[in-house]
């Protein structure tokens, strides 16, 4: 529903004619804004002449709060950044902190992190694909995708006792080792998930209406993707082969054999389908990681409750489901961070919306917004 009264405005067109434009205010609470985004859309008929996103409706001041929390207390805060993929922010933060404090992470913990993050990628992409499909009206596809996500969430609940805000990746490792039988369930999930992905591909991406809705809509060129700092599936959908797991291989990723799906057209279809194929790749990584994981400690023993890294600053990033998620930490030697900055991929990707939406229809606007997959916890922080 609109928040402010709509208005009409007159715009002089390039050819000298005057058109009356309808200004539609989409959001901040709208079924397709994936949270609380407001887009002020100027419409010429059905065609969008200007779409201006207004963000900050979920700006909670997490960066300021982090300055008032101890290093351990920040971890639950990072859960709430990207609430569709809490593990990523956990991990990015912990990596930055580990770099700053010189903490070594046991190998099993790295494997566990990779496993949960790849599962999180699937879960996040399922959410993204599903809600993007729902944006274009395919509610059932949303439920099929969400069903897959729900299974991962059940696995996460087994593993760390929470459904969304896991607080799982901790400085120096992870909070729990896998429970008994969990690994088998995860492998079984991988098998069923592939079939479900193929079914979703046929149901949605094979569908003529969906293709017509997605193809050629919101085209992002590779050059623009790089210049605008896009990352993740948004950049890869445009054919930019940029994936931190390959380009700045962190953790144990170099040990896995996986591919980076990239699109060629840079339209909504490619962006969405890149996500779909990343799920196949995540399944591959999962299986390899589970096979390679060896028993051992899952957490660095002996870290005191209060960490006080030496003064300095560190940045570390991981490839989240939305792109390169970085955390920049400045320490001043006290047990609290001096400054924490989250480099949010969704924020950078969302900046593309005005450019992508211009000239498309109002119906396309929500599809484009969905294909950028913003999560406003992370955009607004």
């Amino acid at each position, binding site marked *: 529903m609109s928040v402010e009264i709509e208005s009409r405005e007159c715009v002089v067109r390039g050819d000298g004619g005057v058109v009356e434009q309808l200004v539609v205010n989409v959001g901040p609470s709208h079924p397709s804004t994936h949270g609380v985004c407001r887009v002020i859309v100027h419409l010429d008929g059905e065609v969008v002449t200007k779409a201006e996103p207004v963000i900050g409706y979920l700006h909670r001041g997490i960066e300021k709060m982090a300055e008032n*929390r101890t290093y351990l207390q920040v971890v639950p805060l990072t859960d709430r950044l990207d609430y569709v993929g809490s593990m990523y922010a956990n991990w990015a933060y912990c990596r930055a902190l580990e770099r700053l404090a010189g903490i070594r992470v046991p190998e099993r913990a790295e494997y566990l992190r990779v496993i949960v993050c790849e599962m999180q990628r699937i879960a996040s992409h399922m959410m993204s694909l599903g809600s993007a499909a729902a944006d274009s009206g395919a509610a059932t596809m949303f439920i099929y995708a969400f069903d897959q996500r729900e299974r991962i969430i059940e696995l996460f609940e087994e593993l760390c*006792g929470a459904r969304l805000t896991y607080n799982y990746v901790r400085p120096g490792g992870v*909070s729990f080792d896998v*429970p008994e039988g969990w690994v088998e369930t995860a492998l079984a999930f991988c098998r069923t998930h592939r079939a479900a992905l193929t079914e979703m591909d046929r149901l949605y991406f094979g569908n003529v209406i969906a293709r017509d809705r997605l193809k050629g809509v919101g085209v992002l060129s590779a050059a623009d993707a790089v210049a605008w700092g896009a990352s993740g599936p948004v950049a890869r959908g445009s*054919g930019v082969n940029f994936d931190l797991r390959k380009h700045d291989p962190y953790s144990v990723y170099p040990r896995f054999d996986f591919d980076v799906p990239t699109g060629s057209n840079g339209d909504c279809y*490619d962006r969405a389908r890149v996500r779909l194929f990343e799920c196949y790749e995540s399944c591959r990584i999962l299986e390899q990681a589970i096979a390679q994981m060896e028993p051992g400690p899952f957490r660095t023993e002996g870290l005191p409750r209060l960490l006080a890294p030496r003064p300095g600053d560190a940045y570390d990033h991981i490839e989240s489901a939305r792109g390169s998620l970085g955390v920049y930490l400045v320490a001043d030697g006290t*047990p609290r961070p001096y400054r924490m900055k989250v480099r949010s991929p969704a924020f950078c990707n969302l900046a593309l919306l005005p450019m992508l939406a211009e000239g498309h229809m109002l119906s396309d606007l929500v599809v484009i917004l969905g294909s950028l997959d913003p999560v406003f916890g992370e955009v607004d922080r």
Partner: protein
Amino acid sequence: MAVKRNGNGGEARATGVEPRHHEVGAPERTPHVVPITIDVSNDFAGGVGGFFERWRSLLTGLGITGRRALGPATTVRYPREKVTLSPRWRGALRLRGVLGRDDIPIVSGPPTGYNALIEGLYRDDRLPPCVGNCPANVDARGQGYFLGEGKAPEAYELVRERNILPGVLGRICHHPCETACRRNYYDEPVAIRPLHRYAYEEYAKVAKERLAPFPVTREERIAVIGSGPSGLAAAFDLLQLGYRVSCYEKETKPGGALYSGVPSYRLPREVLHDEIDNLVALGLELKLGVEVGTDVPIDYLLGEYDAVLIAVGLQESRILPVPGHDAEGVTGALPFLRDANWKGDAGVKGKRVLVIGGGNVAVDVARCALRTGASEVRLACLEGEEEMPCHPWEIEEALDEGVIAMCSLGPEEVLVDEAGSVRGMRMRECISVFDEAGRFAPQFGENYTEIDVDMVVFSVGQAPVLADVVAGSDISLTERGLLPVDGTLFTTAQEGVFASGEVVTGPGSAIASIATGHEAAISIHRYLRGEDVAADRVARPVPVYAKYQPATLEGVEDQRRRIGMPMARPEDRAKDFRQVELGYTHLEALDEAARCLRCQSEVCVGCTFCARTCPDYAIEVERIDDPGARTVTHYELDLTKCCFCGLCAEQCPTDALCHTGQYELSFFHRDLAIFDRHEMLRPAEGTRATGRDAAHADAPSGGEGR
């Protein structure tokens, strides 16, 4: 779906989607990556074929949804049926117990059942780390509890159950309990060892009234050879079990290695004697100055007594066979210490002394040498500064007193002057001490150092001297002069003969010797009762406890800090054999005992670490800290702020705070969601929250993965 690989060419992979792929520009190359591109675009065919493909895609979609519609529903019919929650599920928080309402359990029991008790606690995850990490499983938590309540004699007696000489060990123990103390994680460990000492000092005041001999209830008599810690521990347990025990000591004063090996600046002789006198008062028969083997043959003991325990310890120091090791002025650590302790003069007055070795004994030797008048004491060891095997606080105190440590040096040759006495030592640089597998395999470099000294003390290992003890009996020794002993039962090949202490374990700590004494006592008891010695014997669990990095103390309030042990000034103490540590005052001891977190007791002690760690500051805790009336008066959880992150329950040292499986938390009023102490202690049924989930409420999770 097709995969194109540049480079090492793997297999093409099918993922079920028909491929329609074409090259997408040149693959971007980076040093790390084998660029792989999956082209994700596919399109309908053109023309009439495309027309039918389009219609078919619609039918495919209908087919998929239709098939799903015929499949089963995946719904949980919620109010009637509920999902099985993960045991780790972080529901609403509860307290299992609270100080002032619930008691802290005391780990105490008869010697024969003690191991099973510990084992049971360990299995239930209720064993405090200090108890678990102590070789003798001394209940340091119970000590803290009694001392905090102002009941020092009870604390002493509780400690004495497992640590027969609390006063002595309270001065010399290497305190593995403090190493494992959970408090390391928060700030600084509880001063468990100084509290032993304080308990002893308090007990000494009332010892006369509380000491009464154990009643003799059994016929059998037992001889213990050696009055060191392990012998005394075994004797104490056997006395407790109603046996009559005689202890043979070859020296004129009891205490064994505690007397001859430990310098008196660490252990005043009167304390040692006082505690052994206490044992005598409990019924122990001491036979001093009787050397078994020389004065009395062991066969005589075997005849006279029903069981014999050999706990003679180690008497001989190893001396490395480097060139010149037989020169005058080269000696071993034990003879040196014996001289220093018995005579107060080790013949080093004004001499320059070099101690070879990096263990605790070496540091003792070095510090003794200072006190007996050496002009300069150096300590040379193979290991680097970080890896020295001695306890860091020992070397620190030694360095304070003026000992010069020279690390990463291996002895090469003792330089001997014409008179055949030592004039110096040639050392070789040591690169690494251990090989990759962690075995002792020193690697030496090519740098040599020469040190001018007048005396060299080797402190590189000790060995037992048993030939005399067993002379004339059937007991046989190995080629190296060792007694073959079962390492867990402490039985020897000869029936009725047992062995314990460093004879069995090799050089170790006093508390470890005491632990073996307890074990040996159980074996002797079973042997005398005619039971199977090995049956159902509980092997003591040795959990691996985290070794904590020192916590930052910035912002930590003073009352949370460990109370520092008052020490004599270095320049004073280096000159004589008076005590270095001065001991706690009454108030200090009370405060320090109150710092104990009562780990794993499942009783909230109001340590406030949950409140301190909560990222939402949703918890408020207050407690009254009066000895005897210590209670948590206020515990308030604001459930509307809680973020269910689980950090507080993980911090809880006692496991009192835990997550229940309760997740149905609807309230009609915001204030109802604020749980006070009463509410926190309430069991899940009858809570303020709606929709109780009784099935999981009494199976709280948490406590894992700490």
